[in-house]
């Protein structure tokens, strides 16, 4: 892997973000709306019933972490879609750049897009709702790393679909995360799910991550083993994502779809 090539590809996306204020606004807008929405809903529950006391922090923290996952995945997909929309796909794949350099560049650049959106929203939650995600402390770093790896993995799987099926796969890109959300147990404990679904849900890192987040915020207990387990599961999925991407790329070369990829 050559860093200058990874940087070059990242630069293409950094220029794109830098060059458009509406694009930056768009990145900030949706996470902020999400925080406002969940913040007010949880505040309403808290004020209406003592049963829901102290839920604002948990729900809002879950919303921020879920949005982090969502934005990482969407950022990854968006950058790949940009290449298709701008009909730059062929230029990219005939440049002397390795597939793992493309994956690395998209992975690194996705974090920039994600943070542009999430940092202002997370900071806004502090004065508005008195909720700080940073209260989770050091484990937050590991939760974010695990979520990021899983988000990028979902991005990789969707981009594999784009390479395999072309731009018609775009709708799946938007729907992919909503499909996993019910199983992720983001806003509720895993016990809510039927037993057979719990078995499937446990195969995802999300359940372990959000259970851990609740455990830290409610009981002030940190189980680093659970955090590590989530990181390992995310990493396994990431490796699978890379294998699927390579297989789609080789399949696209066989089918000849790389040469005419465009809107």
């Amino acid at each position: 892997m050559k860093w200058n090539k990874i940087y070059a590809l990242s630069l293409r996306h950094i220029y794109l973000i830098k060059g458009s204020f509406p694009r930056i606004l768009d990145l900030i807008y949706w996470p902020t709306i999400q925080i406002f929405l969940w913040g007010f809903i949880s505040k309403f529950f808290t004020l209406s019933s003592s049963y829901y006391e102290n839920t604002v922090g948990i729900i809002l923290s879950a919303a921020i972490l879920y949005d982090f996952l969502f934005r990482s995945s969407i950022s990854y997909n968006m950058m790949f879609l940009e290449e298709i929309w701008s009909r730059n796909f062929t230029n990219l794949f005939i440049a002397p750049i390795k597939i793992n350099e493309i994956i690395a560049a998209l992975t690194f650049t996705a974090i920039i897009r994600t943070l542009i959106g999430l940092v202002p929203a997370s900071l806004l939650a502090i004065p508005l709702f008195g909720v700080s995600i940073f209260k989770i402390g050091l484990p937050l770093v590991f939760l974010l790393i695990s979520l990021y790896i899983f988000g990028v993995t979902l991005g990789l799987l969707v981009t594999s679909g784009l390479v395999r099926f072309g731009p018609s796969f775009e709708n799946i890109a938007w729907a992919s995360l909503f499909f996993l959300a019910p199983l992720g147990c983001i806003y509720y404990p895993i016990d809510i799910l039927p037993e057979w679904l719990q078995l499937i849900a446990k195969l995802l890192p999300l359940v372990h991550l959000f259970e851990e987040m609740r455990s830290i915020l409610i009981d002030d207990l940190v189980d680093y083993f659970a955090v590590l387990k989530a990181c390992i599961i995310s990493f396994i999925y990431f490796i699978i994502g890379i294998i699927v991407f390579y297989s789609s790329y080789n399949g696209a070369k066989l089918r000849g779809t790389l040469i005419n990829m465009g809107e």
Partner: protein
Amino acid sequence: MKLEIKNLVKKFKSTVAVNNISFVIEKNKTLGLLGPNGCGKTTSIGMMLGLITPTEGEIFIDGIKFIPKNRIKLLSLMNFASPYIELPKKLTVRQNLEVYARLYGVSNKIERIEELVEDLKLNNFLDKKTGELSSGQKNRVSLAKSFINKPKLLFLDEPTASLDPDVGDFVREYLEQYKNKNELTMLLASHNMKEVERLCSKIVMMKNGKIVDKGTCGELINKHGRENLEDTFLKIARSKNEVE
């Protein structure tokens, strides 16, 4: 660089897009790849660029076989331009050239970009977004991108399609001048027969995925008893039987 194509075949399920083609482009020569739409030109170029995996056959560039192991090494020595692929529209011309200079590992990026800006007259719109340019300007930018790494082997797919005669002539003249000063082997796919006559030392005619004739311009015109390459092309394209 010498490009050697040996028994190249590409099948898409039951369709044979490219059927056992072989040809050689000697170092510093330009070969015109001609044929009606859908004859397999783009698929052939796709295989030579490593975008499509051949079903059978081999591609050698300066004796090095084009296989995944050699992909990066060979791609850094070649380039491609076509009006059907574009550069990111939201980036300025300068930003696009910088990104591609970095991707191709150009060591003296600023000087190389300045050279291309001068040669291809890009000064007036260097800081304009690529999507805001006219088709003639876009074409020149696309050409600049294809020359960013000083390629030894260049593939051009209809480089002057949809250009007005003035810009078209400018592009052809640039290609000629560049070739006179630098080592460059070119493969040109074009439907502009005058352009092919002007730039190509040899021609390969394709039809239904096969090579149906090859030779120099003069040889083909004489062989088919026509007055110019356009009429020769029409005769071959419209003939029911394969010529060769």
